[in-house]
């Protein structure tokens, strides 16, 4: 073998190793999450852990129920999607079907797209900070009005599930908008033209023809948004309060992510192992979301 061939071979091997890194990384992460997350399940017991509702890790007789934590994550995510997705979808419609005309509207569209890009780039701690300073006081006023004279309600100072939902809704906007825009743009213009020619109004065309045609792309955006909302940690840790409660609007709640952020720094022993299990539960959710995503994309390819 000549030196030249050896060089080529070495290059090829190095590039192959780089290529395999993603696989290795995912496998190692998965392995670690499982290995670290399982021990606590066997020690506490699966149903006591997953379906238990009492979280008292530092009590004399500790209890490690994470059901409310799981439910809070699910409710917060779906709340955020419920508020965020319609806003995002309508914005995407505006960006694609309202701003293709003259120069002014195209400039408006550019301005809007820049704004969305910047929203995506703002660090999550800044969203958290603003949520703390703006949203929480408003929530506290509301809380005082709604629960005035109710002795059973634990006042939270505005740090509650509702604040978390609103912050998350804002944070998933850029993701859903961007993916929806590219899928709506991909709908061929002749479909719009055909619909308009049949006498449909612009809005009928958008909602009955364009959006159904872009369905799989929009669903991809929604699922990506779900993933982002579920995985967001710092921002909601700053606005959602600090105690484990059932997921009702004005309760202070802990989600899977905020549980990790706020207790990992001091937890030890079994408490720490249970937190790893919380991480594992979050990881399983994320993997499932990824599998759904793959499914949708595959379907989109088959239909398109």
């Amino acid at each position, binding site marked *: 073998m000549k030196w030249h061939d050896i060089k080529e071979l070495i290059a090829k091997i190095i590039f192959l190793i780089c290529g395999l890194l993603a696989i290795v990384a995912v496998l190692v992460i998965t392995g670690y999450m499982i290995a670290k997350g399982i021990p606590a399940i066997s020690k506490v017991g699966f149903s006591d852990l997953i379906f238990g509702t009492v979280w008292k890790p530092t009590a004399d007789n500790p209890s490690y129920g994470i059901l409310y934590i799981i439910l809070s994550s699910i409710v917060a995510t779906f709340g955020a999607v419920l508020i965020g997705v319609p806003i995002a979808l309508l914005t995407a419609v*505006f960006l694609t079907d309202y701003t293709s005309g003259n120069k002014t509207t195209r400039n408006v569209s550019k301005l809007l797209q820049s704004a969305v890009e910047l929203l995506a780039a703002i660090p999550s701690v800044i969203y958290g900070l603003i949520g703390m300073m703006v949203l929480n006081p408003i929530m506290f006023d509301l809380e005082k009005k709604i629960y005035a004279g109710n002795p059973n309600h634990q006042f939270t100072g505005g740090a509650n599930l509702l604040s978390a939902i609103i912050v998350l809704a804002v944070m998933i906007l850029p993701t859903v908008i961007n993916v929806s825009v590219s899928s709506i743009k991909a709908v061929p213009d002749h479909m719009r033209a055909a619909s308009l020619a049949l006498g449909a109004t612009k809005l009928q065309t958008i909602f009955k023809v364009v959006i159904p045609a872009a369905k799989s792309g929009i669903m991809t955006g929604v699922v990506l948004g779900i993933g982002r909302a579920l995985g967001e940690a710092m921002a909601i840790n700053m606005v959602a309060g600090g105690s484990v409660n059932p997921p009702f609007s004005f309760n202070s709640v802990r989600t899977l992510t905020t549980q990790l952020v706020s207790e990992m720094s001091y937890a030890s022993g079994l408490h720490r192992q249970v937190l790893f299990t919380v991480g594992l539960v979050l990881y399983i959710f994320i993997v499932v979301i990824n599998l759904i995503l793959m499914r949708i994309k595959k379907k989109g390819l088959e239909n398109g």
Partner: protein
Amino acid sequence: MAKRKFRPGELLLHILILACSIFSVVLLVTIIVFVFAKGLHAVNWEFLTTVTSVRKGTVGIAGNIVNTLIIIILTLLIVTPLGIGAAIYLNEYAKPGKLVNTIEFMTEVLSGIPSIIFGLFGMMFFGQTLGLGYSLLTGSLTLIIMVFPLITRNTQEALKTVPDSFRQGSIALGAGKWYMIRTILIPSAMPGIITGVILAIGRIVGESAALIFTAGSAKYLPKSFLDIFRKIMDSGGTLTVKLYLSATSEGDFDTAFGTAVVLIIIVLIINILTKVLTRKFDPSRQGR
């Protein structure tokens, strides 16, 4: 031509669409104005060049700025070649098939994993198993896995835009594949690679959840230039971690908003830089 029937429902929907679109812009402007109004007075020369110290009576985030820079440089130094390498393998060497599909799926999974999971994994693997503890190195290694997909994907996109005639021409002139990659492909794909790197800087600057358990929160300045290298093995909080701690456990909102101002300025600069780059090198490529 017959006049269209007036539909009040449609008008309402038009207004709703407009309102939703304006919402993003209003939100962005509100956030920026609010942060600047609350934090600009805290930002001055002392704030940027000293470390908060009760003894000296100074309030500053210089240590966190240095930590952020060290983490950015350390991460990019390692992840850029790896990401480019992976993209080159996927685009230039691998034949379409199972392996490529698996790699691409795994890359996608990797970019979908939330940063808190990376933080947890980094803490366990680099921090404990490899014994690196809370350190800037642990933080960087964690971020390498996190931004790897970003670099790979941007490089891949760039490689796809290099015309096949470049490859064929180079090979026809007798160049080896490695030579062709080095002298033709990488230079042609440079704009895309640089865009990926800048986007990665943006992610690193904004990251907090993956760093708080890996890089820790220390805020001290290195004592000398050489001390920087020792500091890599030490704990160090970035700007976002500083903001988080100031707003929560320390309750120091002046510092929190001051840091937020600095972060927003950095984010704005990065955003403009990516825009300029993508426009300059390839007007047909859409910014993202």
